[in-house]
């Protein structure tokens, strides 16, 4: 990837991270940790990979995205807002009783959201439904879904994985956000889903392992996914929960708690600094 393009994506990801902090701070609740860990991949998807148009969010031929880990809604909303689906200013209304930005995404309220999610394990099934539609329509669009590494403890994920491989849904790319932390602790301590790549491979997936914060690796993975025919792809990406905000990184306590004013100021200052460095 060209340096200028990479820098541009990094800037957008930084703004997406600011949106995550803005939303959860104003809501006084939400899930910043697992939102920050997927900010880079969402930025890549919406600004480089996917065929989507904020002016025509319901276009039948658009690529589809399902946030199976629906609690990372702040990341999805911030990405959609910066892409132009709705005003960035609205991110401050996250989780408010008069806002369309629900705690978990609702496809009927938010422009650009293709599927309502929130109950873990279910989004991947809906993504399989999209991929089936794509197959019926001669591979007319691609389908992407992001799952948490804790989420794959849900049995339904493996029902869906079996289905995707059995029906040869090669327009489907499943992305696992392997930040290694879930509410009750590390994923090994709670109930280990490791080894993740081997599990998807044994279900019949084309499996790619990457660093989920490296745009070169993200780009190579999606290109490889597109080139793969006859089977779905699983991108297992190693990530840092809380990535980009120093005191949130690798801290399970930031799974589902919001920053207070002091923490908000520090986080925003850190992200502004990162932006400045990118612009220098």
């Amino acid at each position, binding site marked *: 990837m060209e340096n200028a393009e990479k820098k541009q994506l990094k800037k957008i990801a930084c703004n997406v991270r600011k949106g995550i902090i803005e939303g959860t701070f104003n809501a006084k609740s939400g899930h910043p940790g697992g939102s920050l860990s997927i900010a880079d991949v969402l930025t890549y998807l919406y600004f480089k990979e996917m065929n989507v148009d904020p002016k025509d969010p319901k276009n039948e031929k658009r690529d589809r995205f399902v946030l199976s880990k629906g609690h990372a809604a702040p990341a999805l909303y911030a990405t959609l807002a910066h892409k132009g689906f709705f005003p960035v200013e609205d991110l401050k209304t996250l989780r408010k009783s008069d806002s369309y930005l629900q705690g978990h995404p609702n496809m009927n309220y938010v422009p650009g959201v293709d599927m*309502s999610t929130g109950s873990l394990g279910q989004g991947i099934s*809906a993504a*399989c*439904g999209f991929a089936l*539609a794509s197959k019926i329509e001669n591979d007319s669009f691609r389908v992407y879904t992001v799952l948490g590494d804790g989420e794959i403890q849900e049995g*339904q994920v493996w029902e*869906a994985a079996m289905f995707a491989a059995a029906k040869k849904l090669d327009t489907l790319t499943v992305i696992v956000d392997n930040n290694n932390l879930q509410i009750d602790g590390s994923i090994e301590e709670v109930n280990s889903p490791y080894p993740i790549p081997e599990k998807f491979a044994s279900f019949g997936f084309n499996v790619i392992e990457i660093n989920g914060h490296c745009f070169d690796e993200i780009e190579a993975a999606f290109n490889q996914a597109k080139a793969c025919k006859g089977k779905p792809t699983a991108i297992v990406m190693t990530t840092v929960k809380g990535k980009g905000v120093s005191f949130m990184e690798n801290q399970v306590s930031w799974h589902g708690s919001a920053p207070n004013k002091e923490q908000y100021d520090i986080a925003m200052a850190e992200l502004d600094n990162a932006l400045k460095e990118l612009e220098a």
Partner: protein
Amino acid sequence: MADIIKTATRDAYGKALVELGEKNDKVIVFDADLAAATKTGMFKKAFPDRFYDTGIAEGNMMGVAAGLATCGYTVFASSFAMFAAGRAFEQIRNTIGYPHINVKIGATHAGISVGEDGASHQCCEDIALMRTIPGMTIINPADDVEARLAVLAAAEMQGPVYMRFGRLAVPRVFDENYKFEIGKGTYLAKGSDVTIVATGLMVERAIAAVELLKAEGINASLINMATIKPIDKDILLDAAKTTGCIVTAEEHSVIGGLGSAVAEALAETYPVPVLRVGVEDTFGKSGPALELLEIFGLNAANIVEKAKKAIALKK
């Protein structure tokens, strides 16, 4: 006397799917390894390219159906009532109900008339479960004629529908002139002493109960209530006003089904005694279906007894 035609509503479901498939190539059918039993196998045979088997994974099936339906398809997803409404309740609630997606759930083998398979497969809770989902339409047809019309009507409307079909062949109640409308109950008899509100295979048994009551000098109204949700409040109000008491009859738990829906509607508008015939708060068991219907009191005699009690409760 002409022979009475007996058909299982699941057979009518399978045939209606084929009829729909012929008219509309956007109709897609899913099953979870029960195509031979749910009768979606008829559609599979006619349109193999538009039929998908998810295997024994009902939760995933509901999600896949939802995703596909948002791309402009009319999707039917089938399993036994126990595994559709029961196993996949939360998938239906969150991925079909909450986003109000156009998925039609064809649930067969509902109620204790499943027979010999016994309690693990006899779903008497499905109407109760589905009723709690906002925006869910629930249809429980009485015979093959109504089942066919219900499937065609469900395909015409936008939004999720739960259709409840039986395994047991049941006598035909309606003729070819019967008009079906989602959300409307219909009078099959008009009387002045009591109204029986019946659904599913209990409609035919309620018709027999009306005759038994007549022989004892009691004039009963009878309403066929195929749509449990949204419930037809207008016809219930009319029945309460004209007869002053109600007996409900359903092949479902007395908790949360038709009886509850009727009692709730009337308690808030025109309170009259409402007595319920249904499966009491108990599990089913193995046995021939017709025997089980007698054992669990899902018969005309029980409707007659409850009708007399309801009349006695009138002020």
